[in-house]
């Protein structure tokens, strides 16, 4: 039996005549961190809203912890913590008071759960500041505190590191990793900060125009990532011709007017450089690099970077 905490089958959401999400088949394994990537408008937030029962799907099935999400909602959603985009709290209340309302409605998990959650996100000393006076980073931290306060089995986090400073991002990343590794919390996270996702996730799903174009284990992805040598030369066409004729290399890509990436014969880069120079090409840069997630991502959705 599959051990997926989140599984969607043919999940679709139409807005008017347009597909926000189309025929989505997600598989989020238990006790793993799943990263959902996609450009703005790819359908990530709509997907998360549907998972949280905030938006009704037009069609399709959502299974949470193996059960239909509409059955036993009370039981299922108490095991979930979430942040959807920016945090929403009452501006006239302090962080503690906001969390107290949530704890009151949920039924407090532990006596010290509010203080503990505030301590984890570093807001425990801001006892008198009301939410409307919080900075963007503090607001986001409070959102994280609200999401983890009841020690959920599943965290659904939409852009949780928005507005955090680099130290804050590092701390939250460390905390999420420890939640997953030590407590076995399953985390379903979306972010535009690819480098952060890369460092955090076990499985990655890529959405484009409402569809899931790839769902892959990071270990496999890393194996797939290839090294290449990037040459900055004065004439890429001549360089390409030399690669094919002199070295029998066809696995290369021309990136722009001066950059050519060669994926084959990495160890022959000295000879290739010598060849270029001897054929009157000016070589300004030679460096060995590895395909990063961003390159993979750009290749997958056919564009430059993500929004």
């Amino acid at each position, binding site marked *: 039996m599959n051990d997926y905490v989140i599984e969607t089958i043919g999940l679709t959401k139409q807005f008017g005549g347009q597909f926000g999400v189309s025929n989505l088949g997600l598989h989020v394994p238990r006790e793993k961190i799943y990263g959902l990537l996609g450009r703005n408008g790819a359908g990530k937030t709509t997907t998360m*809203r549907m998972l949280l029962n905030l*938006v009704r799907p037009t069609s399709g099935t959502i299974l949470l912890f193996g059960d239909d999400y509409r059955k036993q*909602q009370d039981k299922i959603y108490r095991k979930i913590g979430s942040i959807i985009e920016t945090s*929403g709290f*009452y501006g*006239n*209340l302090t962080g503690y008071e906001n969390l107290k309302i949530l704890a009151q409605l949920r039924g407090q998990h532990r006596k010290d759960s509010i203080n503990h959650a505030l301590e984890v996100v570093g807001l425990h000393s801001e006892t008198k500041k009301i939410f409307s006076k919080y900075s963007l980073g503090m607001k986001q931290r409070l959102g994280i505190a609200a999401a983890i306060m009841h020690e959920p089995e599943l965290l659904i986090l939409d852009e949780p590191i928005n507005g955090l400073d680099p130290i804050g991002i590092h701390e939250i990343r460390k905390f999420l990793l420890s939640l997953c590794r030590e407590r076995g919390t399953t985390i379903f996270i979306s972010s535009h900060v690819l480098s952060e996702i890369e460092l955090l996730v076990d499985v990655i799903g890529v959405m484009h125009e409402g569809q899931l174009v790839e769902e892959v284990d990071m270990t496999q992805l890393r194996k797939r990532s290839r090294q290449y040598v990037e040459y900055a030369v004065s004439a890429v066409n001549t360089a390409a011709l030399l690669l094919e004729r002199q070295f029998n290399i066809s696995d290369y890509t021309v990136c722009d007017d001066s950059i050519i990436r060669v994926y084959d014969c990495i160890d022959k880069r000295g000879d290739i450089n010598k060849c270029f120079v001897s054929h009157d090409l000016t070589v300004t840069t030679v460096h060995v690099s590895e395909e990063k997630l961003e390159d993979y991502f750009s290749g997958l959705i056919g564009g430059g970077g993500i929004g």
Partner: protein
Amino acid sequence: MANLLYCEFLKLKRSKMFLISFFGALVAPIFMLANHIGAHFRRPDVIFNMASFYDDTLMFTLLLIGPIVYVVVVAYLFSREYTENTLKTILTIPIKKTTFIISKFAMLFVWLIFLSLISWVGTSIFSVIFHAVFGLSEIGAAVAFDYLVRFMLGGMFMFFVVTPFAFLAVWTKGFVVPLIAAAVVMTGNMMLMNTNFNAIYPWTIPAHFVLSNEILHPPVYPYPIMIGSIAIVSALGFISSVVLFHSEDVN
């Protein structure tokens, strides 16, 4: 439900709207006092009675000030989750949408009754002050108690006739449209209060039930029709608010 209602109270901590509505509830008693002081100086020989104080406050509250102050409270209660972006935080706890919006109506009822009480207390204090300075007839606890019941009844009626504004607040997710509609309703009150229509126009009907003297043109329709008119408006407002809130996606 009790938990949700308790949380609605928690949410009001440091809320300016609570203070605004408190002072709003005192506007009618202040108008009434000013009205009586003016009348006293025009006709010093006339001695007012305590009931006229309460009646004037009730009239200002139900027909003029109430539609604005009470609708501000309605709009605040029903739109704040949208303006503060808190629905996604609350509903994912999870809280059933229907239970959540019914708790809002319960809170509205408590709030409006509280405002009616404030208006009654304000009127009572002002009438005692007026009595001490200029003199009032028929002043006593029995009159005050009789009008306490009328004020509570007035608050209750107002709760029923403001439910359509809750729908407007949920629909437009803000203050502006409910307040424009409240201004229209208030204008309607002023135009219709002394016509035959005051017995079928839902927002003038509460005054027929709680005012003791004939400030309004006497009703030309039987009481069941008047009650029916309020019931229809109230049911429409309540049901449409619940249905809309339940069916809408949370964005």
